[in-house]
């Protein structure tokens, strides 16, 4: 099938619609015994028109899923350490390091050192936790915005927002993106090594109690040495947290 060069040129050009030629129909067009009418067509799910494409899709899935079920091949490299100050995590696969860096060091709050899954969530965190104006404004208007991008709802309290996330966006019922500012008292400061399976910033949620709460102790309120978890063990979850700072954040690049 030969395409004229104009086609490729047009694709590369700017958006726009063609100025239509004048339309002029005769009543004889498509009249009996003829029957043509220009008409859009829609096909429902089970229509046989989709058979070929569906079969191709499933062939592809069969191939892929067989591979997914297999063991992952993970190229190994000589061990190396994360270079971020205070982080001593060791890796022997680049993929793991890349993942570690992006999850723990990329969107970090420069006040409290908490790491967040995305720039968006980091921005919200800074606004709500480190902006002195926020508390004042939130007394008068709804300031807690929904965390789901595309949803424009705002709420009076973070609890209201949480309820909205659970009800409207089907978040898990015990899910918490933000931490309540009241203090939790953990039984003992556990080594947090084993409990950091959760997403950070997605703070909390699946594991009851634990390192999240230990880590989230406000620095200004509990200075007991035994309770402060050194950052190195906390996988960068952040031991100290500044309050109400008006410094501009400094996003890691």
């Amino acid at each position, binding site marked *: *099938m030969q395409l004229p060069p104009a086609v490729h040129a047009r694709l590369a050009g700017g958006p726009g619609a063609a100025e239509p030629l004048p339309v002029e129909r005769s009543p004889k067009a498509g009249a009996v015994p003829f029957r043509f009418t*220009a008409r859009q067509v829609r096909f429902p799910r*089970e229509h046989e028109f989709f058979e070929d494409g569906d079969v*191709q899709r499933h062939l592809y899935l069969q191939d892929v*899923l067989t591979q997914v079920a297999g063991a992952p091949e993970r190229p190994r490299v000589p061990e190396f350490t994360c270079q971020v100050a205070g982080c001593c995590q060791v890796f022997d696969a680049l993929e793991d390091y890349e993942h570690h860096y992006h999850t723990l060091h990329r969107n970090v709050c420069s006040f409290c050192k908490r790491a967040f899954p995305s720039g968006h969530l980091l921005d919200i965190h800074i606004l709500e936790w480190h902006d002195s104006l926020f508390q004042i404004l939130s007394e008068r208007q709804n300031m807690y915005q929904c965390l*789901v991008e595309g949803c424009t709802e705002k709420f009076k309290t973070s609890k209201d927002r949480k309820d909205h996330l659970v009800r409207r966006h089907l978040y898990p019922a015990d899910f918490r993106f933000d931490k309540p500012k009241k203090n939790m008292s953990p039984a003992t400061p556990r080594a947090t090594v084993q*409990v950091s399976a959760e997403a950070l910033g997605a703070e909390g949620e699946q594991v009851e109690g634990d390192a999240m709460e230990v880590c989230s102790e406000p620095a200004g309120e509990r200075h007991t040495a035994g309770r402060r978890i050194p950052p190195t063990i906390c996988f960068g979850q952040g031991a100290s947290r500044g309050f109400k700072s008006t410094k501009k954040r400094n996003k890691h690049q």
Partner: protein
Amino acid sequence: MWLRRQGCLRPAGCGVEELRRRRREREAALRKARREQQLISKRLLRDDAPEEGEGGCVAVILGQAEIQQFLQLAQRGTEEKERGRALVSLRRGLQHPETQQTFIWLEGSMRTLVGLLTSNQALLQLEAARCLHELSHSEQSAVAEACLPATSYLLTYLSGHSSDFISPHVTVLEALGYALSQLLQAKEAPEKIIPSVLGSTLPQHMLQLLQPGPKLNFGVAVEFAWCLHYITCSQVNNALLITHGALSTLGLLLLDLAGAVQRTEDAGLELLACPVLRCLSNLLTEAAVGAVGEQMQLRDERVVAALFILLQFFLQKQPSLLPEGLWLLNNLTANSPSFCTSLLSLDLIEPLLQLLPVSNVVSLLVLTVLCNVAEKGPAYCQHLWPGPLLCSLLGTLAFSDTEVVGQSLELLQLLFLYRPEAAQAFLQQSGLQALERHEKEAQLQDRVHALQQTALHS
């Protein structure tokens, strides 16, 4: 991830012929299953999977206590490898339907899995994604449904990273898209699942993942494009999708695909092109299209250029997708003088005619599109003749398929009506003889006679 791995799986000692034979068998089995409305049976996806690739992995039934044990180990184990192995064991168990059931009814299990899907350790995230895959294979919709509540949360978490192409995140996103696509194929999906999906912010998330540009991940886009297809062809509330800008997003994606084809990056592009074409075609039929603002509609002439580049690609690589591409062309041109004009001004009539010999289905669609153009009147037919069209029509009149011939007759009527000189040329090129052959055919005879009269009186 998907495509990088394609071609890595070659059972040892398997010749090319053997592979082709197996593929033909698999294809035949899938066709049969689809006709029996069984294609969504997840079982089929695993039936042919040979044990070779898995190293003797056998599905094991796990009890509640064992599942709990594996989950705890995965969550709180001291060593990453140990935690990973726990998930591998869990996954093997999840290949069995009984284990799947036990899993979803176990309190906190989904929650734990979701937590692992957002783990800050790559290995755990990957293994958790594999577990999600297993769950989404379940025949029992309750299992797949159990995955749904986490989706919005996971997408919020993961889409913040989509620009980083972090492999485990991408894997989880693909797994999620795949799980969702399985869910959306369930028989009860249109009544139960699709309305709640449409009522959430999932459609916006999905469309975001389909935006062309540097952030687009192909494997992820494929899964979510299929999700969108299952939603749109169920026709629950397509108007809503249009208000979210689905038409313009998918239109831009189509342009992107055509661009990729031009750069000959064709590794599996048809996997994404297919659902995109289907969504566009179905969405265009919605009345809502006329009701939304300019930028939400699909008017860009470049879409026609892109579509033809894709048709050319299909002709070479995947002819079975030609009908789907032509279906979109029909829906674009049927009610649009502008798109019909584009076909003419971009000189696309001749390329269209080159598709006629491919198959009866393709011929029929090509002729329908040409009728869409011709029925707009004399200004359009002026560009159809003189030209190669008449000769092609004399060719299609020789086809044995009644529908193809019938559509040729429709086109001739329009051509003769708006461009009478064409009728004379038709006569001179032995058109009457071409018509005579169908005089006895019940479905065609009235139209044949009418045309014979018109031609003779021209």
